[in-house]
């Protein structure tokens, strides 16, 4: 378990973290999700000891780690750009942590072999990082981090430098790996889809603060703030609220709580139909319907309809 309490960090004039507190349960895979500059990477680096906080404490497995150097925190860290040791073979890279701990050679060899098997690089032990693809390098970096049996695995945008296809593969692979290895893992990402797919808990960060922490579904269905709502999926504005385009029901008759709107445009996108409406106050509204719904309503440009929201909404200051 990692407990982060009231962490603040400032770089010159830029305040990266404003008194952030967060609990990461043992064995979980938690994502720190947010746009660039939200402080998610800084928070991860503070947990790793690569960045010293201006104030606040970090407790890892019941031990105050705030003043400890990275070497003594029992962590594994994976960098966005791999940080492969270029002059060492894959085998030497993975063995590094065990070598500096002066473990016996037979133990090191066995452990390296096991890990290269787990990450699917069994046949690549004698290659050099420059001879590997990006995805392979990152798997090597993961094996290297796992070799020292860290109590916490920290991943800083680990798939950020990879192309979309490899990224999707590695995501699924990481999820499976976590289910096997069960090491407490923190993943930093700016990709909400990645966070929703891989993590069992997500902390959404914005502007140096944590906006909300919860499971992927919980955050999607019960967003606490307009920021969380808009960061996790598409939103449209209905009156003084943000709502999801697929949570808006259109009917031809006025209902309790419904607003009147005029249809501007109907776009058929295969299974899905998108309707652009204008509300009575002149605000635009985007609605997502199934083809069946659209056909039943016989929506056409110029129609006057009534809309209401049936899903979560967050109020925004008008």
């Amino acid at each position, binding site marked *: 378990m990692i407990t982060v309490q009231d962490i603040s960090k400032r770089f010159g004039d830029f305040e990266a973290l404003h008194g952030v507190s967060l609990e990461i349960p043992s064995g979980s895979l938690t994502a720190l999700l947010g746009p660039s500059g939200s402080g998610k990477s800084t928070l991860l680096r503070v947990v*790793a*000891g*690569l960045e010293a906080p201006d104030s606040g404490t970090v407790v890892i497995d019941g031990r105050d780690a705030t003043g400890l*150097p*990275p*070497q003594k*925190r029992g*962590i*594994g*860290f994976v*960098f966005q*750009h791999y*940080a*492969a*040791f*270029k*002059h060492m073979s894959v085998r030497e890279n993975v063995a*590094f*942590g065990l070598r*500096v*701990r002066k473990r016996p050679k037979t133990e090191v060899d066995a452990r390296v072999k096991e890990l290269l098997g787990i990450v699917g690089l069994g046949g690549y032990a004698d290659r*050099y*990082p*420059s*001879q590997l693809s990006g995805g392979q390098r990152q798997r090597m*970096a993961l094996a*290297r*981090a796992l*070799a*020292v049996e860290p109590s916490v695995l920290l991943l800083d945008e680990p798939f950020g430098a990879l192309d979309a296809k490899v990224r999707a593969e590695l995501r699924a692979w990481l999820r499976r790996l976590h289910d096997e290895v069960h090491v407490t893992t923190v993943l930093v990402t700016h990709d909400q889809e990645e966070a929703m797919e891989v993590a069992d808990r997500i902390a959404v960060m914005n502007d140096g603060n944590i906006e909300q922490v919860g499971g992927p579904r919980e955050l999607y269905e019960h967003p606490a703030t307009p920021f969380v709502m808009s960061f996790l999926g598409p939103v449209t504005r209905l009156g003084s609220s943000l709502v999801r385009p697929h949570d808006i029901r259109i009917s031809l008759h006025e209902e309790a709580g419904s607003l009147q709107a005029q249809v501007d445009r109907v776009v058929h996108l295969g299974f899905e139909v998108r309707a652009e409406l204008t509300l009575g106050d002149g605000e635009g509204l985007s609605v997502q319907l199934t083809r069946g719904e659209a056909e039943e309503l016989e929506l056409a440009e110029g129609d006057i309809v009534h809309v209401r929201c049936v899903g979560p909404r967050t109020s925004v200051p008008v």
Partner: protein
Amino acid sequence: MTVERRTRFGLRAVALLYLGALLAVPVGLVFYRTFEHGWGAFWDSITTPAAIHAFQLTLEIALIAVPLNTIFGVLAALALVRGRFRGKWLIEALIDIPFAVSPIVIGLSLILVYGSSGWLGSWLISNGIQVIFAVPGMVLATIFVSLPFVVREVEPVLREIGDEQEQAAATLGANARQTFMRITLPAIRWGIAYGVVLSMARAIGEFGAVSVVSGKISGQTETLTLIVEKRFQNFDVAGAYAASLLLVVIALVTLFAMTLIKPRKEHT
């Protein structure tokens, strides 16, 4: 023959002529002139006691100055690239002084400090330590003139490799010494090697600053460059060329030694 090919050949010819006229011909002539009067004359002129002593002294001074500058250079480069402290610009500017100031001025400035009437020299002499017109002063002058090379070669390499590999090593449990020996040093060794070659070339070839502080005492404070000058002034042109050739040989041996430490597996 297409126009591009003609241009390419033209450019090559110009480059070769330029290098030939400025470098190859003069250095080649040194070889030619050295052996003009046969191997025996050459051997005699490099085995005089003064020449042997000068050869030893040149190496001795270089072997003190170059390792010191290498250690200082690597530490300074690390501090300048990785460190966060005030007054960095001042150190950057100071390191370039040997490049900017004429060697003669450097020699004179050393006399001002360590000479018999200098503000440190008088105290040193009263304690029995002679710096100026002795080997310590020549070592100081050589350190001074060859100081920037290793720093300036290692700095850009350190900047380029960044500190992510070092951070990764730290998270894997490596202490500062292990990280330096296993990660940083292998990554910058080419920069160091190049800096050492340049420092060595400068150290053995230095004339101006060493000439001022040496006093040119034959068999005591004479280096190879000083012998070359003295022989040339005394119309012993063949002798001057012979001593020059020794300087060239030291430079070539240094270059060769550096290629030996070339990484066995080069992967970039």
